[in-house]
């Protein structure tokens, strides 16, 4: 007989066990901070805290009572650029870029003497002002962290702490106090839309599955976040895995499923590890398994690792992959709600969508609707990357403007060397290889599902890549084309062959072989690929090309007609230049040039004949005075 879980008892026990903890030191253990050496910082803390005579607790066991300092890891806190991050509570301090060498000072001055170390605080680049904690740093104060609220606070590997913070209470409510229809209606009423890209109303999806005849049904959590430049789902799975499990439990309750799958990308080893541990812990506590909350209902979760195929983010392809086949999409209808995994009714939701569900059930649909805007309620997490001062993970209500995100939260556009640029950005790519680009004319555009679709972009999974003025848009669209061409599963001819031809046309443009006819052909083909493909991958593959053609036609023309790339990114369309101020006329480059393109007398400034030059770059390497640039 499995025990019936008492959430209150666990929460109280946890509270009692941490009552005597004086301070908490939370080290961000997201992928970003780990890569920057968070583990070494952690080890240094253990060493120095013990050395200073204080008691350090690294593993909380709810049965024990703890004293001293609790040292724990958290999920991604979002401010990846500044990692490793160390939070000290209850002082509310956030130390950034902490190195193992800094730890002895932190222990001595902050933990023992309760002083603040200014040099480790974040300082605002423009004013140099120090910020004590997240409540003073603009990167955080301008966000509204809803789904990510507990990422960075809760220890992702401690189920008791999650329960202490009201975790699994929403699931209990759904299983004990609500009927399946009531749960579905609540989500429907909340207006929650799928965070994975499409923006389909989650409640509708559940309702369509709920009304199917009783029998085996499945709920799948889509954690196959393949968009290059996006890592929101990874952060949620790493930072708060129990919220995903709780969301799945509620979804299972709504549709009548007794089995679920979490499909995680294998490129995210830490997310896989934490999700697996969370599932195990939940099973051990009786939160997964038979007779949940004594309701008579049961629910189990399997975790499956992907094997590296972008197309598996598409729901029908993902189901094929779970069934052990090649992950190729199938035509819809039948929709997964009618015939999904192994032919059974199935709901597939994105990680972030599922993580929102417990919060909605907890706060009620009406309160949720107050966040965001009318058609797109709630918040959205974005991965803010590229040429921007504060890269990292952010969460804002739908309807926040692009300008607010890039300039205020992101802290402005940067140059190649990381210094702040005053020129503004050239474009922001949103939605990855399926999305489009936004330009400075969109600074005031509220970001939500519908307004983005209107301008030819999409929310997608939420990658926001900022590009500065030195970025060549033709090359960027080639980059995305290369990606989709590589990831096309090969089922539809237009996607398989069309993307290949589009890539070849873009290569023609970049390598200087294009004519005006090339652009016409490229655009025609783009529309054909959109029409002739079955799944979202092919349908949206031409988007980056179409959107750059729309906003940067002039740049394409420059490449095609003038054979010139003004950003000097396309090697074939640039020419080396000799800086007359630096050239001393030493003739070294003349001797090195394999085609005799450089002329000039000794002690006179040399000249390059662009028509003869093959852009091999030999002269640039040969010049000791760095007088030659451009190739």
């Amino acid at each position: 007989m499995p025990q019936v879980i008492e959430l209150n008892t666990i929460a109280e026990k946890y509270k009692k066990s941490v009552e005597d903890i004086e301070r908490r030191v939370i080290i961000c253990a997201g992928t970003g901070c780990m890569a920057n050496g968070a583990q070494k910082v952690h080890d240094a803390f253990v060493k120095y805290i013990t050395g200073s005579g204080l008691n350090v607790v690294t593993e909380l066991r709810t049965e024990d009572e703890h004293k001293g300092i609790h040292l724990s890891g958290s999920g991604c806190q979002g401010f990846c650029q500044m990692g490793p991050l160390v939070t000290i509570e209850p002082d509310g301090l956030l130390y950034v870029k902490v190195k193992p060498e800094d730890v002895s000072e932190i222990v001595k001055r902050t933990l023992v003497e309760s002083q603040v170390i200014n040099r480790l605080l974040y300082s605002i680049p423009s004013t140099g002002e120090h910020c004590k904690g997240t409540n003073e740093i603009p990167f955080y104060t301008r966000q509204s962290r809803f789904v990510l609220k507990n990422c960075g606070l809760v220890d992702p590997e401690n189920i008791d702490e999650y329960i202490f913070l009201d975790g699994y209470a929403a699931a209990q409510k759904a299983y004990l106090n609500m009927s399946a229809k009531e749960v579905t209606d609540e989500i429907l009423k909340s207006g929650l839309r799928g965070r994975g890209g499409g923006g389909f109303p989650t409640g509708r999806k559940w309702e369509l599955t709920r009304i199917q005849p009783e029998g085996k049904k499945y709920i799948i959590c889509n954690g196959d976040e393949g968009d290059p430049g996006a890592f929101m789902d990874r952060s949620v799975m790493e930072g708060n895995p129990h919220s995903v499990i709780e969301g799945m439990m509620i979804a299972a309750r709504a549709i009548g499923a007794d089995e679920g799958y979490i499909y995680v990308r294998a490129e995210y080893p830490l997310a896989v590890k934490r999700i697996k541990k969370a599932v195990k812990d939940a099973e051990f506590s009786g939160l997964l398994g038979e007779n949940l909350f004594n309701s008579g209902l049961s629910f189990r979760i399997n975790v499956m690792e992907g094997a590296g195929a972008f197309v598996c983010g598409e729901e029908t392809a993902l189901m094929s992959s779970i069934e052990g086949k090649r992950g190729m999409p199938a035509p819809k209808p039948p929709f997964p709600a009618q015939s999904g995994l192994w032919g059974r009714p199935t709901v597939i939701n994105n990680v972030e969508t599922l993580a929102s569900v417990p919060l909605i059930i907890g706060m009620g649909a009406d309160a949720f609707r107050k966040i965001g805007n009318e058609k797109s309620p709630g918040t959205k997490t974005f991965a803010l990357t590229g040429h921007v001062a504060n890269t990292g993970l952010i969460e804002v209500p739908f309807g926040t403007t692009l300008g607010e995100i890039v300039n205020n939260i992101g802290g402005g556009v940067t140059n190649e060397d990381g210094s702040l640029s005053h020129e503004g950005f050239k474009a922001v790519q949103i939605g990855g290889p399926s999305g489009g680009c936004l330009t400075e004319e969109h600074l005031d555009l509220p970001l939500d599902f519908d307004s983005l679709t209107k301008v030819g972009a999409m929310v997608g999974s939420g990658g926001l890549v900022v590009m500065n003025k030195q970025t060549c848009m033709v090359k960027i669209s080639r980059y995305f084309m290369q990606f989709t061409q590589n990831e096309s599963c090969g089922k539809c001819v237009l996607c398989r062959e069309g993307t290949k031809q589009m890539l070849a046309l873009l290569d023609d443009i970049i390598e200087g072989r294009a004519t005006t006819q090339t652009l016409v052909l490229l655009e025609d083909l783009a529309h054909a690929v959109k029409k002739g493909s079955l799944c979202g991958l092919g349908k949206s593959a031409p988007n980056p090309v179409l959107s750059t053609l729309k906003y940067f036609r002039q740049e394409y023309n420059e490449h095609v007609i003038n054979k010139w790339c003004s950003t000097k990114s396309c090697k074939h369309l640039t020419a080396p230049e000799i800086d007359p101020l630096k050239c001393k006329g030493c003739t070294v480059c003349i001797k090195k040039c394999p085609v005799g393109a450089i002329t000039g007398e000794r002690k006179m400034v040399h000249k390059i004949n662009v028509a003869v030059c093959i852009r091999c770059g030999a002269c640039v390497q040969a010049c000791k005075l760095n007088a030659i640039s451009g190739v």
Partner: protein
Amino acid sequence: MLTESQTISRSRQFGKVCGILEKYAYDSSKLIPILQLVQEEYRYLPEEVLVFIATSLNIPPARVYGVATFYSHFALEAKGKYVIRVCDGTACHVKGSMNLVGIIQEKLGLDDSRKTTPDMLFTLETVSCLGACGLAPVMVVNEEVHGQMTKEKTTAVIDELIAMEKGYAAGN
């Protein structure tokens, strides 16, 4: 003809495969996790093992081969001891990840068609996104993530590995 010791090591190898197949109860729908574990064991998927798996699961070898070639994680050729994966996700790409590829290729004498060094020490790959975009450009050596890479840092990482290998060789 295989020598006796080769025959024994073969059967031992298949012994491990059998263990993996048993773990998944010879269920053909678990083909992907099976191949993942097998690859963890061998570092790639040898052809004879694929045929062995197909026969054991009672499915056509073509289906196993189809799955093995569909997913980019599965390798049909042996990889080097150190697999260097340079992230070419959007964020890394705009921050110059392809320059890193060039530097590594030059350093190790590789090119787009030759991805593994002849001494089987290094394999160079690009991956679409590792999700560590905040640290772009990113490079991963086996499981270790190196962020915000520059030309100097990249060269240093590889030099260190080469020096370590030389140390092993000298130690032996």
